[in-house]
């Protein structure tokens, strides 16, 4: 007996030491800027600035970038995940829900864990996943059959598997979970169908559910009266993109999706709270602290599931804690992230459905700009001015970088899926439509990477692409901005001028956000394109 107890003590001690070396504490995630060699959450830190403090690659040498390795996913789904890097090990997702650990220096695999989602899983727009989260020695992933999985980061072993919502009821999960303290917070997608969206928090160790917030208030709750009849029960409002967290207020922020049915609001009269909104939740209780609705009573599928970017900036001469939001609806917003107060907003592409804001920051609708029997030309396009791709903010340049569509439009017909520019009557599949196929001139719809002044939301520079873009943006302390587009080019731009420094043709759509890390003193930039993940670094002899 003594011998056995002693043995267990030795084992526990060995395991304890080994775990300590790799523990990703929440403190590390929160202050990931102190360890620029790593990339510990979806957009780098819970502020979602997608900014790397690494400086080895800069405006002078970016032209010397060259391919280091490629990892090819054995999947024909869109590759939307942003990888994590922890002390030289990269973790990413092979869509829909296989998890891989790779050597970040060579791209060679340590382990792969396959997960077979239930055949009940239904997704509107591809069987995709946008990435993992990590806390301690554990990885977390939402699955397209609406489960939340915890995996051992050393071995890929599945530690627990929790159903968040029922795939049979058309719920799915595609977003990267938000880690806050000892909690994993995740939202449910599926809002193009008759779901009732949810955000739920789970104990990171055990998977025990701690709280659940419904994105559509139930009877008796404030906001339920913004839905006519029983429409609140099936009003959609999915949550399918990464949230943000501010430790000062202990608030988590999530963008919410469109109300359902998407293009026909006649059965759901009212503002339809909290669709197309940002909700600020107390992470300990899940209680709503404030919300701001970007598109009340949306009939144009303008999900507000963009990635919230938090920054501390000068606004009208005073320091202000803000949230930056380039919305799918074509408007860009500056909110006070402590109170939810609307500070500033303006159209950042051609918009014809809205005309400014009232004194409280409520958007003013242009009459008649709704789906009609004859069809109404609406700007921006149903896919938006931007959609879900993560933007960036550089504290060095003080600029907000967004990759988006410009000059795009759609024809909205009552109860039907909007048509691209009215030129081709073909029904379009979400996320797959190539606007270029429908255009008559090069200026009709195109992609841009633009830098905006966060205080005024005025553009500072732009880099134009022939086709639209679903790519995210990364900015670095070397003053380089990385992005790409549907044409398959991966771009390095000067963060202050937008000048093209370097490009690579990757032969597949860029449907993800770039990120940066370093191993053994070498800085890498990764981007997913087509079905592969590419890692670039400076040529060996380059300085």
């Amino acid at each position, binding site marked *: 007996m003594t*011998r*056995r107890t002693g*043995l*267990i003590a*030795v*084992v526990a001690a*060995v*395991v304890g*030491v*080994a*775990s300590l*070396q*790799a523990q990703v504490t929440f403190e590390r995630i929160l202050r990931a800027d102190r360890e620029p060699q790593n990339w510990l959450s979806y957009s780098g830190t819970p502020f979602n600035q997608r900014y790397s403090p690494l400086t080895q690659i800069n405006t002078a040498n970016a032209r010397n970038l060259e391919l280091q390795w490629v990892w090819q996913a054995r999947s024909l789904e869109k590759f939307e995940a942003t990888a994590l890097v922890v002390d*030289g*090990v990269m973790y990413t997702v092979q869509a829909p829900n296989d998890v891989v*650990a790779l*050597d970040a*220096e*060579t791209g*060679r*695999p*340590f*382990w*792969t864990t396959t997960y077979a989602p239930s055949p009940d899983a239904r997704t509107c727009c591809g069987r995709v996943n946008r990435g993992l989260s990590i806390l301690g020695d554990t990885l977390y992933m939402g699955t397209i059959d609406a489960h939340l999985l915890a995996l*051992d980061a*050393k*071995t890929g*072993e*599945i*530690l*627990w*598997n*929790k*159903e968040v919502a029922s795939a049979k009821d058309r719920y799915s999960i595609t977003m990267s979970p938000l880690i806050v303290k000892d909690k994993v917070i995740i939202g449910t997608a599926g809002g193009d169908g008759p779901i009732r969206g949810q955000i739920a928090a789970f104990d990171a160790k*055990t*998977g*025990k559910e701690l709280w659940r917030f419904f994105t559509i208030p139930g009877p008796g709750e404030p906001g339920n009266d913004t839905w006519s009849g029983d429409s609140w029960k099936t009003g959609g409002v999915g949550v399918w993109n990464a949230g943000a967290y501010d430790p000062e207020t202990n608030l988590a922020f999530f963008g919410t999706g469109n109300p359902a049915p998407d293009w026909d609001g006649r059965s759901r009269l009212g503002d339809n709270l909290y669709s197309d909104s940002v909700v600020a939740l107390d992470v300990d209780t899940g209680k709503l602290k404030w919300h701001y609705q970007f598109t009340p009573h949306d009939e144009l599928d303008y999900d507000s599931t963009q990635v919230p970017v938090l920054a501390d900036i000068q606004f009208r001469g005073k320091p202000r804690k803000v949230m930056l939001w380039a919305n799918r609806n074509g408007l860009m917003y500056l909110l006070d992230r402590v109170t939810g107060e609307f500070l500033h907003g303006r159209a950042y592409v051609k918009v014809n459905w809205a005309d400014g804001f009232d004194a409280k920051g409520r958007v003013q609708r242009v009459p008649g700009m709704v789906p009609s029997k004859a069809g109404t030309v609406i700007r921006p396009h149903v896919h938006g001015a931007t959609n879900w791709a993560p933007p960036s903010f550089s504290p060095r340049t003080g600029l907000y970088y967004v990759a988006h569509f410009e000059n795009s439009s759609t024809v909205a017909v009552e109860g039907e899926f909007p048509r691209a520019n009215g030129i081709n009557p073909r029904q379009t599949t979400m996320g797959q439509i190539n606007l270029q196929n429908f255009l008559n001139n090069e200026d009709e719809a195109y992609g841009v990477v633009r830098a905006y002044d966060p205080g005024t939301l005025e553009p500072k520079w732009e880099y134009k692409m022939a086709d639209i873009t679903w790519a995210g943006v990364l900015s670095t302390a070397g003053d380089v901005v990385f992005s790409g587009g549907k044409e398959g080019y991966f771009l390095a731009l000067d963060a202050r001028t937008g000048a093209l420094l370097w490009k690579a043709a990757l032969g597949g759509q860029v449907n993800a956000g770039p990120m940066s890390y370093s191993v053994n003193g070498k800085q890498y930039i990764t981007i997913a394109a087509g079905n592969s993940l590419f890692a670039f670094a400076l040529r060996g002899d380059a300085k």
Partner: protein
Amino acid sequence: MDVQALPAVVAAGRILRTSDAVMQKAKGKMQMKRRAVGGFVLYALSAFCILHFELPASAQHETASDIEDGGRVFRQSCANCHGPDGNEIPGIDLGRGVFKTAKTDEDLVKIIQKGVPGTPMPATNMSEEQAKRVVAYLRSTAATKTTASAVGDASRGKTLFEGQGGCLKCHRANGVGSRLGPDLTRVGQLRRSAELERSLLDPAAEVVPTGRFYRVVTKDGATVTGRLLNIDTYTVQMIDTKEQLRSFTKANLKESGFIASPMPSYKSTFNAQELADVVSYLVSLKGRATP
């Protein structure tokens, strides 16, 4: 892990292919005899069946990796109802060649693909190739010896596993123990009792691809050993004795190569009853419950 890229497995594949050729020859000869001497038909057929079931691979062209792939498919698609040993449905013992109606490999392939109408055996969407690999796997398992006759007690086995056996020094089960050796949380789904018993008595007899050990010496003299996760022409990936994921570029190594697994034989540690207890415990490890 890309099994096909591993030299050891490729070598094994070659050996199997050689024995396949011998089998093809034997089969051909038997067929000739059958035609020539009517009285020998019954004998020849039964001899063929016995032969067939005892050889490590069927008389097809399956390689070791095909058989392993067949095993993977079996565990994913068949073991839920038939059990990891293939003997959980009365009257059927897939691992020992006891079937209800199937007489030939072709019959088995057909049943795997189309199911058996009027029974819980469903049709699958497996291709003929995949179904053939499952059959090859079943044929290969029929050759494995059965376990000791003693009946094990899983709870006593757990005590031995965690205590006297010292298994957690290298293995992990349900989140407890070391990650150096293969995680055993689901081993009862992945390995048959006979295989588990053999691994305990004679660990070197068959080392699964996920259980091989490797050693590197870097140019600056550091020695690292661990369980091999992946290897290619230029690099090696492993989990080391400190449970760290490590990757090495071979150009930076002075030495590298496979080493014997540190897994000891329990021949003299456990008596027959204790061995059966530990095997029972391992068989009971079927993965974690969902919270």
